[in-house]
């Protein structure tokens, strides 16, 4: 008998593959119990089923947070950190610290302190004295803002939540009263819709003005921004099928289309507040009749009053504003008045602004009570109150962003880490400055951009996974959406997510980014420090230095400016959704850019910038330098790393069943996880796909380097090609890549068009 050599080869190959799979699993387990798995000592023993994790985390969350000895291996330890300050408290050896953080994170005992530098709350060259001043000023400002919020809702700052939310019960009676204004506002639209059923332009127009006036100045910027993309406005109506008339869709569509914000992907926005009820008065009347309590009658009065006004008057902002206070209960009026008189609040605090905020507050509470409920820390309702306060203050100072789901996931770690709410607030605020594009009213455009980047990264760095995902139709990459929006908080345990954050921030740290962040400072947060420290800066020089910076980001190419880190073009950030002209803050708009005080906000000075520019160029590790060229922040590379590291598993798991379902199954698996396995990121819930955060970061950094290199090669190549075809010998492969790149780019440009037609055709 002869042995078929091919047979042998095949069988050994399959054995090989089996081993690989096995070892893959082993890697996971090994990492669990070895390398970084010391967290088990907090009480977790062995592998736990996902169901039980919740309660386990409760048992061990607190000790885990404070124990510093549990982490082994490289990380930034207190001794190293203390040693990096000079006698005046300036940070001198930050690059070393960064390297350690990238390798293994920060010792939890110094985490809060280091984060303030990582996030850019304080500049490295600030003295401890300066920082103390700044901290004091920030705390004062936060408390002022908190007081403003308190006048609008007395619960703010008291440690109790604005609305009663039991374990499962949410009594909305109280909030309902608060929302009465909102409801009334809404009703104007309803009335309008039912009175005038014609889906003509005039109707749409009136809705438009109605809505913008309802929202007062606070949303002017949105209207503008949305308006700017009005070329796609007709899409919404175009989508209507004839039958929709039956459902009176027309009124809604016409109401929404003026501010529908078609993104590059062609998705639509629906204004949050004007609840257009297509059932018009019928359902409303039912509600009124059948809910004979005080709230309902108040509601009815408001509605009638406003509706009449709406019918009789041309809706101009001023008229509405004059009228509205009369239709609101007395308590509210006095509250508003006091807010208006508040000295630190510049601009006009509109009734709409207040009711908008109250409505937002309600949303905040609804989400706060279900954020990190597994942590023992949040069993204390006072801590939930803290979380709610910070989000409420933020929504007040940034009405253009307000509150968006996901933000509570981001603020929670700061509440845990910082004792003082003001400190937590400022860190959170700095994080949101980077990620604001993810939380906009128009939709999470930042994340959508990042998903596009991710697609391109995969295309350039891993052909296998790219073609596989293409084959199975997973181009949307939506399974990565949550990872990017809440920065792996839902995929990782609390502690691991924090570690991942600091590692990513360290890898992305670049003090020049702080310049951009400075420009992104919200008006009400600009702080004036005593003139002593101000003297360090000369206004002109700052501007010179900024202007000299090439607006590299504007041509960030395939990579988006999604992180908001690199969006500086000129003085004002392009994507920085600063509510420059928004309601309460409008008075000062334009002022900030000419006020040097903004630059003291983070304690940055001209001298510091120049010094750090030098530092970065000479000492910075490669991982830092890449971002300065306008490429993207690390999170998206982390997602790419996760996919690439698990290439085989993904390709295997997402191929066996029929393709479309497979992709969706994949998405589902990502999302189904109830997480909290320490140290590990899991993608498939039962078919666990694990790896360590450290490895993910390492891979992501390498990937970014490779990606930046490849993009540059392509850029250089195409540039050279256009200049002089003969000068450079171009490899065939590179040529192909470049082709693809160009295709993708042009595809992206026409994407909104494509998507549009896709939507219109209803697939």
């Amino acid at each position, binding site marked *: 008998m002869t042995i078929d050599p091919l047979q042998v080869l095949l069988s050994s190959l399959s054995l090989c593959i089996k081993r690989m799979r096995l070892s893959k699993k082993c890697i996971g387990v090994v990492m669990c119990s070895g390398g970084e798995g010391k967290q088990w000592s907090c009480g977790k023993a062995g592998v736990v089923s996902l169901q039980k994790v919740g309660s386990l985390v409760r048992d061990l969350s607190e000790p885990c947070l404070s124990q510093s000895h549990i982490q082994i291996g490289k990380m930034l330890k207190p001794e190293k950190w203390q040693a990096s300050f000079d006698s005046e408290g300036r940070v001198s050896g930050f690059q070393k610290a960064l390297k350690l953080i990238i390798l293994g994170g920060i010792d939890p005992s110094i985490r809060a302190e280091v984060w303030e530098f990582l996030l850019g709350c304080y500049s490295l060259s600030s003295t401890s004295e300066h920082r103390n001043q700044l901290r004091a000023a920030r705390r004062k400002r936060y408390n002022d803002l908190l007081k403003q919020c308190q006048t609008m809702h007395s619960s703010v700052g008291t440690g109790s939540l604005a609305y009663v939310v039991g374990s499962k019960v949410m009594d909305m009676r109280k909030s309902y009263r608060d929302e009465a204004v909102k409801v009334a506002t809404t009703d104007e639209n309803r009335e309008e819709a039912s009175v005038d059923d014609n889906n003509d332009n005039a109707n749409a127009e009136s809705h438009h003005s109605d809505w913008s006036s309802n929202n007062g100045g606070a949303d002017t910027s949105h209207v503008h921004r949305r308006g700017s993309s009005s070329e796609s406005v007709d899409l919404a109506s175009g989508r209507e099928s004839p039958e929709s008339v039956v459902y009176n*869709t027309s009124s*809604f569509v016409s109401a929404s289309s003026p501010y529908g914000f078609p993104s590059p992907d062609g998705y639509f926005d629906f204004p949050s507040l004007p609840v*257009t009820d297509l059932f018009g008065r019928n359902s409303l009347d039912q509600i009124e009749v059948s809910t004979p309590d005080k709230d309902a009658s108040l509601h009815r009065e408001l509605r009638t009053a406003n509706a009449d006004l709406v019918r009789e008057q041309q809706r101009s902002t001023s008229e509405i504003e004059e009228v509205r206070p009369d239709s609101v209960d007395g308590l509210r009026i006095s509250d508003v008045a006091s807010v208006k008189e508040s000295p630190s609040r510049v601009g006009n605090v509109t009734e709409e602004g207040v009711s908008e905020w109250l409505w937002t507050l309600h949303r905040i509470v609804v989400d706060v009570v279900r954020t990190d409920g597994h942590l023992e820390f949040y069993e204390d309702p006072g801590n939930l109150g803290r979380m709610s306060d910070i989000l409420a203050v933020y929504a007040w100072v940034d009405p253009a962003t307000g509150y968006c789901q996901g933000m509570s*996931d981001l603020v929670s770690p700061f509440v845990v880490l910082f004792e003082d709410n003001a400190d937590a607030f400022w860190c959170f605020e700095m994080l949101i400055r980077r990620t604001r594009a993810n939380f906009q009213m128009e939709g999470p455009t930042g994340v959508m951009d990042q998903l596009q980047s991710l697609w391109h990264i995969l295309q350039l760095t891993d052909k296998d996974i790219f073609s596989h995902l293409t084959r199975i139709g997973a181009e949307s990459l939506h399974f990565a959406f949550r990872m990017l929006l809440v920065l792996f908080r839902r995929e990782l345990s609390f502690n691991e997510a924090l570690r991942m954050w600091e590692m990513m921030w360290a890898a992305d740290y670049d003090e020049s980014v702080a310049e951009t962040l400075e420009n992104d400072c919200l008006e009400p947060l600009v702080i004036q420090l005593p003139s002593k420290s101000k003297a360090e800066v000369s206004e002109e020089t700052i501007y010179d230095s900024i202007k000299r910076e090439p607006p590299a980001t504007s041509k960030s190419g395939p990579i988006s400016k999604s992180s908001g880190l690199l969006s500086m073009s000129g003085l004002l950030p392009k994507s920085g959704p600063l509510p420059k002209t928004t309601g309460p803050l409008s008075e000062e708009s334009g002022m900030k850019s000419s006020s040097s005080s903004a630059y003291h906000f983070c304690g940055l000075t001209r001298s510091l910038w120049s010094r750090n520019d030098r530092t970065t160029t000479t000492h910075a590790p490669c991982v830092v330098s890449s971002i300065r060229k306008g490429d993207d922040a690390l999170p998206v590379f982390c997602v790419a790393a996760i996919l690439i590291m698990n290439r085989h598993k993904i390709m295997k798991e997402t191929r066996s069943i029929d393709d479309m379902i497979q992709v969706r199954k994949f998405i589902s698996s990502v999302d189904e996880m109830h997480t909290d396995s320490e140290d590990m990121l899991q993608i498939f819930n039962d078919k666990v796909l694990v790896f360590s955060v450290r490895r993910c970061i390492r891979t992501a950094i390498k990937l970014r380097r490779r990606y930046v290199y490849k993009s540059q090669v392509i850029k250089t190549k195409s540039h050279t090609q256009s200049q002089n075809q003969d000068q450079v010998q171009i490899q065939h492969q590179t040529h192909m890549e470049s082709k693809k790149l160009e295709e993708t780019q042009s595809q992206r440009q026409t994407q909104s068009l494509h998507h549009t037609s896709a939507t219109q055709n209803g*697939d």
Partner: protein
Amino acid sequence: MAFHSEDDKSEDYLFKIVLIGDSAVGKSNLLARFARDEFYPNSKSTIGVEFQTQKMDINGKEIKAQIWDTAGQERFRAVTSAYYRGAVGALLVYDISRQQTFQSIGRWLNELHTHSDMNVVTILVGNKSDLKGIREVPTSEGKALAEAQGLFFMETSALDSSNVAAAFETVVKEIYNILSRKVMSSQELNKQDPASLSNGKKVVIPSEEQGESKKGGCCST
């Protein structure tokens, strides 16, 4: 081709159903209760889109319901609108203890009809029926609205399980019935373009869908 052939395997019956409604009305818990018989009092807000596939037995046929769960906050709808595509069923959920969530139903219905087929089988679901003490939306109101809009109606409680399976089953059964009727009539019509039966997207046929999706490019699904 999915459902025009009699000897189709049961797995070919895959109905996409979307769960929509305001934040915190209990969409995710309805799904958790239905698909896994679980309930999370502390469940987190849904970010992005999740889904779960559940096998069901309708008239002796095995049917898979692929149930999509979306974030409730308006601004996410920009993203989630893509997920309406191909939906043949919908659960419009409100919270009987929060009037506001009921008032949003109209907007959600518009949303549904804007982004998906008009013939989506829809049930209006008043969730949290266990919260009798603080009910704000009377059953009669929900019923009246459902009748006016031609929707099915049911009050459910993901907490105590009441009516949860029934709500999903109502939708799936109706889809199945419509489908069966259409299949029959199409067979009579000598197999017209099967896509016209269901706008070509109701029952997921992998090979077809794949072809379409390839054209989409990144992030445009």
